[in-house]
């Protein structure tokens, strides 16, 4: 029998970035907040210390910092007529388990989306006509605008100590920044990171071919920084172990390095680790969430009643919880009705390897040490006649040069044997790669539902992912890869190796942990699960955070927008707590 615990004002499912933000904001407003984390406690010391965190085999290759598939995975197929099979090992994306969530092991590549990204359908139809959007593409506006989110982007960036150079302050284009970005109210809190040899070469080459490179906005601190909560961060030392590692140096923004030192001191906040939420409970009418059921390490069940339930788990886990809790109408691709599981999207990335004439020392890196060209993102360029909408950035990220996984060898390198050894000897220090980081639109047949066969450790059906890339994404990706190849040719090199991503989406090679959608936000309850304030349309005390609310995935990394949306939703929750009603009336 499940043990029933005393009620709290707010229960948070998960304890990563969004839960930390919501907890900080709502405890300030006086609420009694509890976070339930399925993984364990982790902190900079001792878990990310330099004595052992810089271990490529243990963390990046053996994946000991991520969720284990044995406990939680999904099944996958490209098309609805295929048999979905379980993702037995992690590959394409890497969700976390443990306090801090994926905010511990991200690179810190931090972006705002473009103003037109939030109005994608309206803007695309206006500029290119309704025919530009093919049948089956289910893109929609977000129900929130860039201008509404701007103060919250600002709040997020000053929380994290983002290093960068503004490109547009209040409409005035700033030299050295991204000339395509939406207007921001002020400069970044910290100047850009130092450049390394590879980003310097990229910058020069990109200018030569007529593009507009700028330093990537980085959640890696270029200077010591005391953030808006008074938490002190250290200066990044370019150790090269950000992505897939925790930061030893208090330099990469994470819940641990920005919020938790303040939050954990509060009497009205508590959290439990190894508390895996398996159900959201509702009243008999299904109009109100009454709490959650979670299972501890020993398999004991607990009922945690709450006035408000906020889903702060990783994108697809939020959707899984809604489906197994039978909340909302599950999406049905045959009739194109229902909202839970609808509009899952991802990212389409491709690479161009360059072996330079200059020695690069690629191991001196940081997760967001990069130089970027944004000329071909979103609607920053005229798509007329191109055969696709959307776009992406081209970046040279110098994340670390870690020996096992970060070998960017020239085309024609033998795969093994003496020839491979010779290439590694001659080229490792001289080789780098550019990434084309592209948008993925949403489609009628890309969706999440429950698997009929496979179950997880708790007996719940696995989430089932049906997903593939479509012609629009392939055309976009080819266009981006060709532009990146133009830049690569302008770098003095001993060989370039373009690696366009072709064919079906595969769950195997790592691409990005930018899984989006399934509980989309929007202005229309027929096509969105949450309203523009991230409040469930049908259940006003249930809220959904994270990239699960993206109605499609723009060409940037999601975390900056995930953070801004959490602050935006927290303000709405404070209004809701004073007057517990739907914030948008249907």
């Amino acid at each position: 029998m499940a043990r029933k615990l005393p009620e709290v004002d707010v229960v948070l499912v998960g304890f990563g970035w969004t839960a930390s933000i919501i907890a900080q904001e709502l405890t300030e407003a006086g609420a009694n907040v509890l976070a339930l984390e399925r993984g364990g406690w982790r902190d900079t010391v001792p878990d990310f210390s330099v004595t052992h965190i810089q271990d490529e085999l243990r963390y990046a290759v053996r994946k000991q910092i991520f969720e284990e598939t044995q406990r939680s995975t999904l099944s996958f197929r490209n098309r609805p007529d295929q048999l979905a099979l379980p993702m037995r090992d992690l590959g394409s994306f890497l969700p976390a388990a443990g306090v801090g969530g994926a905010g511990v092991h991200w690179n810190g590549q931090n972006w705002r989306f473009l103003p037109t990204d939030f109005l994608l359908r309206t803007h695309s139809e206006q500029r290119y006509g309704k025919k530009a959007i093919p049948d089956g593409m289910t893109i929609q506006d977000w129900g929130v605008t860039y201008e509404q989110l701007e103060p919250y982007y600002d709040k997020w960036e000053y929380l994290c100590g983002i290093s960068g150079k503004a490109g547009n302050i209040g409409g005035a284009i700033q030299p050295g920044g991204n000339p395509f970005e939406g207007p921001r109210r002020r400069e970044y809190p910290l100047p850009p990171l130092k450049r390394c040899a590879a980003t310097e070469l990229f910058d020069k080459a990109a200018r030569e071919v007529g593009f507009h490179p700028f330093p990537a906005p980085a959640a890696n601190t270029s200077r010591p920084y005391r953030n808006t909560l008074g938490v002190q961060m250290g200066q990044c030392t370019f150790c090269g172990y950000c992505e897939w590692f925790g930061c030893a140096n208090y330099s990469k923004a994470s819940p641990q390095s920005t919020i938790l030192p303040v939050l954990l001191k509060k009497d009205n906040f508590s959290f439990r680790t190894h508390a895996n939420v398996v159900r959201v409970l509702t009243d008999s009418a299904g109009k109100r969430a009454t709490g959650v059921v979670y299972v501890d390490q020993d398999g004991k069940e607990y009922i945690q009643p709450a006035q408000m339930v906020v889903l702060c788990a990783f994108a697809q886990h939020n959707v899984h919880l809604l489906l197994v809790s039978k909340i909302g109408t599950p999406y049905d691709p045959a009739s194109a009705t229902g909202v839970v599981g609808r509009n899952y999207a991802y990212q389409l990335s491709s690479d161009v390897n360059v072996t330079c004439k200059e020695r690069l020392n690629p191991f001196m890196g940081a997760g967001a040490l990069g130089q970027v060209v944004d000329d071909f993102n979103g609607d920053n360029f005229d798509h007329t006649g191109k055969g696709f909408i959307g776009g992406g950035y081209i970046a040279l990220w110098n994340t670390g040069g870690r020996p096992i996984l970060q070998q960017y060898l020239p085309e024609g390198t033998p795969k093994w044997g003496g020839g491979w050894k010779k290439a590694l000897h001659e080229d490792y220090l001289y080789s780098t790669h550019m990434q084309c980081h592209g948008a993925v639109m949403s489609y009628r047949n890309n969706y999440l539902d429950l698997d009929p066969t496979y179950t997880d450790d708790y007996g719940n059906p696995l989430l089932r992912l049906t997903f593939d890339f479509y012609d629009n994404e392939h055309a976009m990706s080819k266009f981006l890869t060709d532009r990146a190849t133009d830049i690569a040719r302008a770098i003095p090199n001993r060989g370039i190796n373009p690696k366009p991503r072709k064919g079906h989406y595969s769950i195997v090679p790592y691409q990005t942990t930018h899984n989006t959608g399934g509980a989309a936000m929007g202005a229309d309850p027929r096509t969105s699960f949450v309203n523009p304030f991230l409040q469930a349309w049908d259940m006003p005390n249930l809220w959904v955070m994270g990239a699960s609310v993206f109605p499609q995935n723009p060409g940037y990394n999601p975390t900056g927008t995930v953070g801004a949306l959490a602050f935006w939703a927290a303000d709405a929750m404070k209004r809701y707590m004073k007057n517990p009603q739907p914030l948008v009336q249907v």
Partner: protein
Amino acid sequence: MKKIERMDKRNHMDGEIGAAEDCASPSRRSFLVGAAFISSSLLLGGCSHGESTRGPVSPHFFGPDEGNFVRAAVDRLIPKDGLGPGAVEAGVDAFIDAQLAGPFGQAVGIYMQAPFHLGDEEQGYQLPFTPAQVYRLGIQRVDAHCRKQFGGAFAQLKPDQQDAILHELEGGKIDLGEIPSDDFFGLLWQNTKEGFLADPIYGGNRDFAGWKLIGYSGPRYNYLDDVGNFGKPYERPYVSLGGTSPVMCRFGDSPTGRFRGPGCEYARMPAKTHYDALTTTTGKVWPAGTL
């Protein structure tokens, strides 16, 4: 699609792997359901290859024939040559042995729930075997293939014959029963690279052989003053998480690993590096006291 063709060839019309034709396992599936949980997952479930079920896991996974195979194979994959030591000199075979005896070999944390279907390549690994089992079965069958074709086990063949076999494995061209030969090769090659280039605490990359080949001086903490020195060599002594003369964990996990099991032993590596003479990334020798 490649895998579907293979499936059809083996006449598993429903695309499902049952007990393999050449294996007398009464219930491979039921055995494998719990494979991720139990140390006995290294047993071969009654496979009738003349080798009965093995006993409990020992610190060293490979039997003598298996050790010979892996040593010979990694010697061809990364050979010793004028550029320096190869995989054998770097201890890669010992690294793989330790990895297979540890949580990686046993697929700890990996979703192993039945039913197993091969599916499409895009759907990823779908075999009902742990990495340790893939090695055990794969080596037996490659050796059987070599005996049939050349009259000797893989380790006894000439280097050019061994290379030919490795190329065929890589191309998926040798029948290893339910294990596609390119999957077997892929696992072997991935683990070989790992053993050559991972931190020496795991038993490979001995004497920093892999890192010396490429010019990576190890997990250093601070490049703040160096990152702007475009094009310049970076000269520091090679260093491991275990120091300049690292230790290794015999179960293949790091000394601080969460899977650190009972009986995890640490043995000082036979490294040549000492504080009084440290080779640097540019081949210089640093005098004592400069670290």
